[in-house]
């Protein structure tokens, strides 16, 4: 099936098997491997991207469902060498270790602040419940998001 998606500001036309997931399309067809796959039950959130400005788990939708939409992945976040404030906050607060959950976590965190620009610690913890991390104990991820909210 043919599809056209604006990914990180660039229009990309493609032709995929109907069963192709959005995450597969992003990774395998477009070569944007920053978005990761961590599970097969939509539990971990490693594949979180933004579609039309909202965070979505890209393993939970078909690529063709994104036809005509705008998708933002981790690769499209920084402006040149200038990292997005959320990326900076993760760096400054050691919000990542192995890095595998990180792209999805950063995208989810940005989505969270869009909905709730001044969250409490509890808001952040509940808001990120759908994004799993095995390294950080979430402590510094929560700190990162709260720091980004302040900045």
């Amino acid at each position, binding site marked *: 099936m043919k599809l056209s998606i604006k990914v990180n500001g660039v229009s990309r036309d493609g032709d995929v*098997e109907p*069963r192709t997931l959005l995450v597969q399309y992003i*990774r*395998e067809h477009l*070569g944007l*491997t*920053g*978005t*990761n*796959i*961590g*599970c*097969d*039950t*939509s*539990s*971990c959130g*490693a594949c979180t991207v933004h579609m039309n400005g909202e965070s979505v788990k890209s393993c939970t939708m078909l690529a063709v469902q994104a036809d005509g939409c705008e998708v933002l992945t*981790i*690769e499209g*976040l*920084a402006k040149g060498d200038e*990292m997005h404030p959320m*990326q900076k906050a*993760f*760096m*400054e607060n*050691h919000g*990542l*270790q*192995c*890095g*595998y*959950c*990180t*792209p999805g976590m*950063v995208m989810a965190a940005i989505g969270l602040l869009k909905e709730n620009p001044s969250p409490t*610690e509890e808001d*952040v*913890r*509940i808001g*990120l*419940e*759908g*994004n*799993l*991390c*095995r*390294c*950080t*104990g*979430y*402590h*510094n*991820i*929560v700190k990162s998001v709260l720091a980004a909210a302040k900045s």
Partner: protein
Amino acid sequence: MGGSILGNRVLRKEDPKFLTVGGKYVDDLLDESLLTGALHVTYARSTVAHGKILSIDTSDAASMPGIVAVFTGANLGLTPQPATFNPMVARSALAMDKVRYVGEPIVAIISETREQGEDAAEMVIVDYDILEALTDLEQALTSSTHIYESCGSNAVFDTTALGMPDNTGDAFFEGCEVVVKQRVLNQRVAPCPLEVRGAAVAWVDGRLYQWLSTQHAQGARDSIAAANGLDASQVRVITPDVGGGFGAKIGSYPEEQLLGRLSKEVGMPLRWRETRSESMMALGHGRAQVQYLTIGGTRDGHVTAYQMHVLQDCGAWFDMGAILAPFMTRPMSSGVYAIPKIECRTTSVITNTTPVVAYRGAGRPEATAAIERAMDLFAAEIGMDAAEVRRKNLIPKFDEPHTTVIGQTYDVGDYEVALDKALNAANYEELRAEQARRRSSGDVKQLGIGVSVYVEITGGVPPMGETAKIEITDDGRAIVYTGTSPHGQGHATAWSMLTSEQTGIPMENVELVWGDTDLVPSGGGTMGSRSLQQGGVAVFKVAGQVVDKAKAIAARLLEANEEDIVLDRDRGAFHVAGTPAVAKTWAELAVAAKADGGLKHEEMHSVASATFPFGAHVSVVEVDTETGKVSLIKQIACDDAGKVLNPLLLDGQIHGGVAQGAAQALLEEVRYDADGNPVTSNLADYAFISAAEMPDIQVVHMETPTFVNPLGVKGIGESGTIGSTPAVQSAVIDALSHLGVRHIDMPCTPMRVWEALHGRK
């Protein structure tokens, strides 16, 4: 001259990449030219826990679209290979005559796309003669059904067979005023690195190249070479970024070892990545012990005898899990306490479950959980405060090696200070007062306070040392080669700090090379909290040697005595003392050294012994007495890992460790049904801990340097898990102790807590 960078909170230099384009994990190697045209491997796996294979029909699978080849063990001529520590336990990489756990690989399918392989795997038909599934460790121990018939028993390793004394039963406690017994479950958990297993292979000029998500490339090279009948020199393992390991990626697995052979058969490079559901069944599990504990002592709180029989579930293969109980749990059975008499027997048992491997702490959390649980039971029996009974029995501060009665020697220890720091940070007295208030008012939400004090082994796994090599490039950068293997710990930052400290070369001009066995042929990988005390110390020493070599060259160029040459670290330049204006930079010295083979040094740093970090944790929980729901509301962690190189990285390791410990105490458990089917085989069913279940973690610093290495450092990778697990479990039980609850097995789920309060209904 500026001060030392060591000990400072330095941000990670690896982060910008992870944050902007993401890491390059094995499944991300899309533009690796050696993998052009790579086909995909999918394994068809056993759907029964224990059975004889009567037939394998792959004809339908082979005729599916895009299927290039389908292989069984018989096609490949595989034969059973014996386990390292017990040759009577033998299996082939693909199951042939028998399957022993759900998820065991049986058939390898090569396809053009991954999806075609998954479809074809569904079409493989295996006919089984189903045998009794022994998923319960104690049932397997006494069953006449033997999972490896040639063993004549499911018990495959026992400390008594190693010549260690058997336990002597109740007679051991003669003279004790108080004796308490408890069967304790240290349940099976799944390590769950967020990146599952994956690999890619290509044959290059007759050599096997294997990209692998591993914690130990050099070990994987050797096991892959052996499995393929190759010399180690014919295999090159390359480690891309690794999305977590937690012990489960130390060894290589049959699915990985077979790829070279499969690639040779089809004449094409191959990629393999398991799904999460496969990973939950076939990546090794952790813990999985049943412990029979008896503790005895005096009414005034002195423990005088402690006896433990550990039953270690090996799962369906004699993997590393089988040897953790005898060689990691048993030596640490005394914990931080001066107990005059200890007996500890361990028995490792094969079951029809996923093989057990190392998982964060690997044998030490189990030892700590056991003695801490025993201490709590003893305290409850004599009506003494949990912190007080511990204080009475702690080994007093020592700065010379101390050997416990079980025979383990610790380097340095100051356990009472750790306990005091944790109690003070927690406001322990106030917490007890609040608890008393809630108890007297009959609050639905009762407060529980758990205390643990622990000591563990780090850097105790062979090889006892690590190699480092440093090369200075013509433009004055340092290339550091290490046999350790980062997968989240921040080696690039830490090793750059150590190199920069010695050489004055700025951190951004230090490049780290690891995990490629052609570039780093020898190394012990990253496991057992060994990296800094072995690999880091090696880098620090070698950097010092490179400075000495540079001084000799500078002396020649400046026509001065070597001992008069000084390194100005701020400038990264060498000059004669007192005449800084005439100096030679690292770049100039590297160029000058070219004729003599370059400016570089390589050395193996051997260590005499492991180190023994220690600490104390306090956990505070609220338990809803109506529903059994537990909320962890406070966690205080005082972990002493000796001198601290970078508190940013240290705290990160503690946080992650604490979460995994809390996860085991409260949530996570791998479970099977009566037929041996896993019922927690994906992340929807397995209770992987999330941000919502974790509280803010309060880290309390304490630094007691070790004399074992020149930096005074110990390991920190596993301490958080070891300290937190028993503290959290203890807090849950403590919340209900006034209601007569003495013990709840982990995980302390609402159901288990409710049952402890109300009895099984």
